């Protein structure tokens, strides 16, 4: 089994001639890094979005004013809605990177497993359901986002949609039992995704220190609990009649 060594280090050097950020992103570690950073942005968005939404519990005026304030960000300094759009574009970009990296890694990993996979059911000891089903929870969340936007941002999925009338739109959509259930299921998938992602990102960007390693998991659980419970509380509150028009 002789092998003659072609000097692979030259080819590595040749690859280095590409712009470094492309070069970096083309590696798996780079993609994981990009996923982690975009994941942090998305997590930040999730938290901010939830904090805003929880204003529904403070009454219709409060949440409608919150939505209005978002459009008014930057006040008179910039054209109305421009900051919001910048944020939306940033979010979209982060999300696109997250999805692109995830898909290409998923494809690579599939290939890396080889054509003949294990024929015996693998016994997993460390891998959690959350980690193993990241791709599926991710896809669920993606489909949900499409629905969610057309439900509460664009309106086609919500027959009672009125632009700008946030509180009313929320109550209207969650009064429909199937929508409430769909929403809860999607949030649970998102929770599973966050549960693994919020821990995993530390490893991907190389933050590992015995002093706070145990907090990485606690943080992930805490974020998950906050995001899941906070988001689920709204449809439940509508269904139980706590929030109504």
């Amino acid at each position, binding site marked *: 089994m002789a092998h003659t*060594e072609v000097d692979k280090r030259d080819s590595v050097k040749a690859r280095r001639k590409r712009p470094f950020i492309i070069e970096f992103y083309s590696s798996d570690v780079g993609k994981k890094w990009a996923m982690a950073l975009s994941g942090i942005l998305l997590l930040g968005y999730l938290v901010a979005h939830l904090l805003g939404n929880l204003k529904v519990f403070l009454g219709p005026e409060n949440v409608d004013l919150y939505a209005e304030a978002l459009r008014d960000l930057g006040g008179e300094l910039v054209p109305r809605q421009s900051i919001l759009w910048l944020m939306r574009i940033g979010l979209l970009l982060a999300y696109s990177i997250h999805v692109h990296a995830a898909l290409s890694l998923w494809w690579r990993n599939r290939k890396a497993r080889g054509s003949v996979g294990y024929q015996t059911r693998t016994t997993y000891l460390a891998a959690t359901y959350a980690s193993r089903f990241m791709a599926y929870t991710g896809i669920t969340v993606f489909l949900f986002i499409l629905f969610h936007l057309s439900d509460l941002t664009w309106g086609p999925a919500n027959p009672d949609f009125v632009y700008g009338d946030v509180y009313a739109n929320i109550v209207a959509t969650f009064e429909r039992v199937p929508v409430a259930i769909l929403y809860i299921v999607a949030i649970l998938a998102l929770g599973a995704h966050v549960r693994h992602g919020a821990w995993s990102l530390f490893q991907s960007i190389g933050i590992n220190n015995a002093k706070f390693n145990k907090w990485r998991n606690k943080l992930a659980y805490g974020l998950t609990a906050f995001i899941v419970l906070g988001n689920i509380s709204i449809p439940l509150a509508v269904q139980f009649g706590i929030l109504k028009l």
Partner: protein
Amino acid sequence: MTTLDSKVPAGSIEDKWNNHKFSIRLVNPANKRKYSIIVIGSGLAGASAAATLGELGYNVKVITYHDSPRRAHSIAAQGGINAAKNYHNDGDSVYRLFYDTVKGGDYRSREANVYRLAEVSNHIIDQATAQGVPFAREYGGLLDNRSFGGAQVSRTFYARGQTGQQLLLGAYQALAKEIAKGSVEMINRSELLEVVTHEGQAAGVVVRDLITGEVTAHSAHAVVLATGGYSNVFFLSTNAMACNTTAIWRAHRKGAHFANPCYTQIHPTCIPQSDESQSKLTLMSESLRNDGRIWVPKTVGDNRPAGDILESERDYYLERIYPAFGNLVPRDVASRNAKTQVDSGHGVGPLNNGVYLDFKHAIARLGEDTIRERYGNLFEMYERITDDNPYETPMRIYPAPHYTMGGAWVDYNLMTSIPGLYAIGEANFSDHGANRLGASALMQGLADGYFVLPYTIGDYLADFLNVDPVPTDHDVFRQAITQVQDRTAKFLATKGTRSADWFHRELGKIMLAECGMERSREGLEKAIREIPHLREEFETDVKVLGTNESFNQSLERVGRVADFFELAELMCRDALDREESCGGHFRVEHQTEEGEARRNDEDFTHVSAWAWNGPNQPQTKHKEQLVFENVKLATRSYK
């Protein structure tokens, strides 16, 4: 019988190596690439030699039967590596390491080689440390040492219980660097099956690709055998399953003398055999004897659990017989005493085939945590294998074949009696005499590979500037290929009834009984009668299924067993010939009244180097007289 020339340079022992390095010829750096060298084996000796030769600029080809050079059995060495650094300021020196090694070898090693070994030992530590071998450290960041295997100074460097692994990885990584650079070509999963000579000089080798079965010839200006020892002749040993004698034996059949084949080392602290199906024995590091106390019940056949046997009913026999060294007597002494205890019915365990190694007192004195820190991984390993917890019940140990001091005869340049054929590491006989001290095997393998062979080989190569190696389509290679193919075909065509392993196990039983820890004239003569019978049976009744053209592990094994048969006979002849007891060679006829080894310096202060005379012909013995100019021969006493 002729006397062999060891080519030991003149001068005082301190100057020999330096003078020699100056007086031998060098190869011009620009010319080194014109030479090709084949290294067989990629353990400590092979990998370190190949890496160094590659760095120097030679064209190197390394051949191993493993899937990766990192697998060689050097990796299993646990305890450590000696060097005369004297970092502990406890009176160590090159001379003391030299002296201890000669004495430990029971005055049967070549002084000049041992001195050189001690001299370069310090460079090995420097080299390994620079390579990133994670040796144990003190809190100040400097290297830690421990005392090991009966040495009275702390000169053993260690990396937990995995020193061999770490040193091998260091050498392997150096080799990987050269492979990436292109100066070394690595050929994996290929086994040497013939050494090829042309006009009396080494011309190359013939190897079989273990995956495809293809037999190919490789030629070079010089061939280096770094193929380890032959303890597996006993079948059950601490060696890895694949360790074998084939490379050395094939060289022997082509004219390389085989030196001191009867010098085998039986390691005292191994886990006793548990049943017939056992495939190998596991060694527990000798360092355990630093804190463990060895005992057996005083009453014959006392089968009570160890905990029920009162202190007054225990015989701490090593402490009783050797009050000065106690449990730390050299390996051969510890082993033989264990055998005596078991043979006289004091053995412990389900098969009454072990002695206790007890940590009760050490735990009481130092606390369980300290013991766990020192030996935790060994205790775990013991528990995994035996299902007994050594923190609670004493370990059971028994000696097992472990290392072979004998091997290819080499001169001071490490060249065998075939010009251009070198043997390094455990494969040669040179440095350990009749008994090897603990933590010296790693030292010797690396000394040969890093610091000796790369110099001395240049002296031989200098003659061949602009001379091409014998082409691989030359008749000598063609014939060798045919021989290898015929031999393989013969094994496959035998179609007998029993596996090669079965015969190997039977051979091992004879060897362990008659040529193991104790040898007697009667027993050896019996073995010399029995082995050829068993070999004949093997030749007509062995069963190897499958084909040559596939990955066929039975076929790999049968060839190795065939060579073990021939070697076994030679070992017994050598043991019979050596009418004395020395080191690992103990003849019952030659002992003092107290049962200690009695050397015969007058007649046997020599190396027995055996020359091949053809199949079924006893070998001829040649002598290399050992001259001791510095160390005075004395009776080893550990009392």
